[in-house]
């Protein structure tokens, strides 16, 4: 148990050491850079809130990825699903001016979830009925979603003055408000955390979640025991898409308030790294997404104060992910055994299986 907590920290320490070498070689002061990174990510109330805001879409998409991956459905399309969810939210959001706030919010979020569910569901249906590999279909649907966004902001949803490729802002009633403005703290993060708990319960406390995990571990055995693979595939991909789409809707409702091209900087792809770092555990998604959000947020301060190029920031992010994943292997267990001895205490508590009476 201890090791599962210590591991990510050890990985971070190793990443910091490696990065220090790179920074020193480039003539920058590693300490100054890390201080700026920490300062940028957590140095003030605003910095903390911005870290949270930057992490929120990563939680939604991270949950989408971890849910699908738990069923061995390799959904690479969280980005497209988020984009379609955002389009649906942006389209619906402009028409909600006459509704009460709560209904408008519920509607815009539902529209986003539905949009994402349709986009994920298409890939699920193609897998279940036509045996199309979901890796391919979700990547293709990503392209379609990006172009669809580009088209709507140049066409049907373009703002009335036709000067900029953006949509009209959504109605104020459909906007998630900022608490403690001017900070951008909003309800989106809370929703993400609640959904993470819900996903955890779905996977580990329900019969359907069990079926999904069984399908993920051994599709053949799941088939033998009457688990309806096609239905479960469509359902899981739709739910995965809904989570990503909801992330898109939250982004539109709380932050961007309108649609524009390249709305997502690649959250759906970063989400794969988030989900893997969290070992697909929905509760682990929250700290993993916060880590990525903090790196992203802190790196801007790093650029400002230390003159580190944004490219180097990406190098640092990449190194951190790689090192965390590299630590997350049986080899690490072996290393621990070599240093601390085989898990000695609990081995003594129970007699070895080989000595138990057989029959």
């Amino acid at each position, binding site marked *: 148990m201890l090791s599962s907590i210590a591991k990510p920290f050890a990985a971070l320490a190793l990443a910091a050491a490696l990065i220090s070498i790179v920074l020193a070689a480039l003539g920058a002061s590693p300490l100054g850079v890390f201080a700026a990174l920490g300062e940028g990510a957590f140095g003030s109330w605003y910095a903390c809130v911005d870290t949270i805001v930057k992490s929120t879409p990563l939680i939604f998409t991270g949950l989408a990825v971890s849910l699908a991956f738990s069923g061995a459905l390799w959904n690479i399309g969280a980005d497209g699903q988020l984009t379609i969810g955002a389009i649906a939210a942006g389209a619906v959001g402009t028409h909600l001016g006459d509704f009460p706030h709560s209904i408008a919010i519920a509607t815009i979020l539902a529209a986003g979830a539905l949009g994402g569910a349709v986009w994920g569901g298409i890939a699920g249906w193609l897998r279940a009925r036509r045996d199309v590999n979901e890796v391919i279909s979700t990547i293709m649907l990503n392209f379609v979603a990006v172009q669809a966004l580009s088209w709507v902001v140049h066409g049907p949803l373009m703002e009335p003055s036709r000067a900029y490729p953006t949509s009209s802002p959504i109605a104020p009633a459909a906007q998630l408000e900022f608490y403690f403005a001017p900070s951008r703290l909003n309800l989106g993060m809370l929703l993400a955390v609640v959904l993470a708990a819900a996903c955890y319960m779905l996977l*580990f*406390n*329900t*019969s*359907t*979640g*069990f079926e999904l*995990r*069984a399908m993920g*571990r*051994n599709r*053949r*055995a*799941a*088939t*033998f*025991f*009457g688990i309806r693979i096609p239905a479960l595939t469509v359902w899981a991909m739709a739910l995965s898409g809904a989570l990503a789409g909801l992330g898109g809707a939250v982004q539109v409702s709380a932050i961007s308030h309108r649609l524009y091209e390249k709305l997502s900087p690649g959250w759906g792809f970063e989400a794969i790294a988030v989900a893997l770092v969290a070992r697909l555990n929905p509760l682990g998604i929250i700290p993993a997404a916060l880590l990525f959000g903090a790196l992203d947020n802190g790196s801007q301060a790093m650029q400002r104060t230390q003159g580190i190029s944004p490219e180097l920031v990406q190098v640092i992010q990449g190194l951190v992910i790689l090192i965390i994943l590299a630590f997350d292997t049986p080899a690490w267990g072996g290393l621990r055994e070599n240093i601390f001895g*085989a*898990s000695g205490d*609990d*081995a003594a508590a*129970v007699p*070895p*299986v*080989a*000595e*138990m009476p*057989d*029959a």
Partner: protein
Amino acid sequence: MLRANAITKRFGRTLALDGVDFEALPGEIHALVGENGAGKTTLMKVLSGSLAPDNGQAVLDERPLQAGSPRAALEAGIAAVHQSPMLFERMTWEENLALGGFDPGAELLDLAAVATRARALAAKLGFELPPGGITIENRSVAERVRLEVLRALSFNPRVLILDEPTSVLGPSELAAFLDLLRNLRGEGRIVVLITHKLAEAIAVADRVTVLRRGRVVARTTPAETSEEQLAGLMIGEIVIQPDAAAARSHTGAPVLQIENLALADHTGRRILDGLSFRVSAGEIAGIAGVDGNGQTELVELLAGVRKPSDGKVTSRGAMSVIPQNRDLDGLILDMRLWENLILARPLREQVTLHGWLNASRAIGLCRELIERFRIRAPGPDTLASALSGGNRQRLEVARAISSQPRVIVAHNICRGLDLVATAEVHRRILDFAAGGGAVLLISSDLDELLAICGRLLIISGGKIRETNPGDRDPQRLGLLMAGARD
């Protein structure tokens, strides 16, 4: 000379090998016998370099082997044939063999050269290879074993270690295979044969080493011992063969009815051709046949994994299926025991309320079944992969029976199991039938079927036929299994 010196290997809480000494001489077939979980396979893996021992070392001709390196073992002249097939299903047999020593090692892969060399070696060993370009997936198990042996021999090893190679072979294939081993011995190689089939060990081995619970309990020769004595050494207790009489005496109303069942593959070839039979309450009906005659497909149809092209299956009451491939179809190895238990829908429903899974109830149920079915496991939270083959099968039987079905369909359930586990699985099946359940037991082991089945059917070429109730002559039945007509 191949020697293992005081090898100790521990897996978590399990002491798999406890200071094992072992030696085998050139020109010798050395049988390594023991029940499931005795440590045979672990010892083999240490000798062939795929596992590093915690203590001790393997020595070939006074030279210590590098621990934990299959490549080093191979270079030193030790080749192994593993228990579970290590073939690439969707590749051709030549491609599979190209990974062995047949590849001339030129820049480009020369499959024709591989095939020629393989055929030459196969001919020398007395068997034939299929036509070129045929993939592994539809080949019989006997052919797969031969291909694996061939691949191992392609390295021209001085030591060949075989892990339970014969458990999948029919009677006629077995004789040929034992001759093959004798040929290898004649060439002065060291052959280590891991088996739990004692008759076989006595028939072919020069010396026998008996393992029990990770320790060597006897070193002997066939001349000095007997099957009974070896069985006693292996298990340390007397096995009571189940009494089949009960199952034969009374049967009730038909529970499982199969009518005109047919299955064609995508080319239109008939894999199953108009099967009709019924199984009644309280009856154990056996289907005997050489593997690859449609049994797997029949089980898949009964389990609902496939749809028949024609005909229908009627079952009065729930059915539990125990598929033949424990590790692929029956269990999810990297899930916990209790999770594997609730793979069965009736058990899952038992611990589910309004869609919510009650894990502690499932764990309680699992603990109860571990106790009742004597599954050797630390507890319900153990991963299925940590169990030995026999205990995996006990888990499957426990799951099937506790699902309270009217019918159990079981396919090769005792394959690879030792005497104790086999007897116990059979006793459970007999108890189930005695309690009014219907059992369809599909097996390629005629002795098993004759021991516990009241009625015997033969499957051959996708067709099924009843046998005469009085006809229990294994030789005649063996001929029918091979496809002979009356």
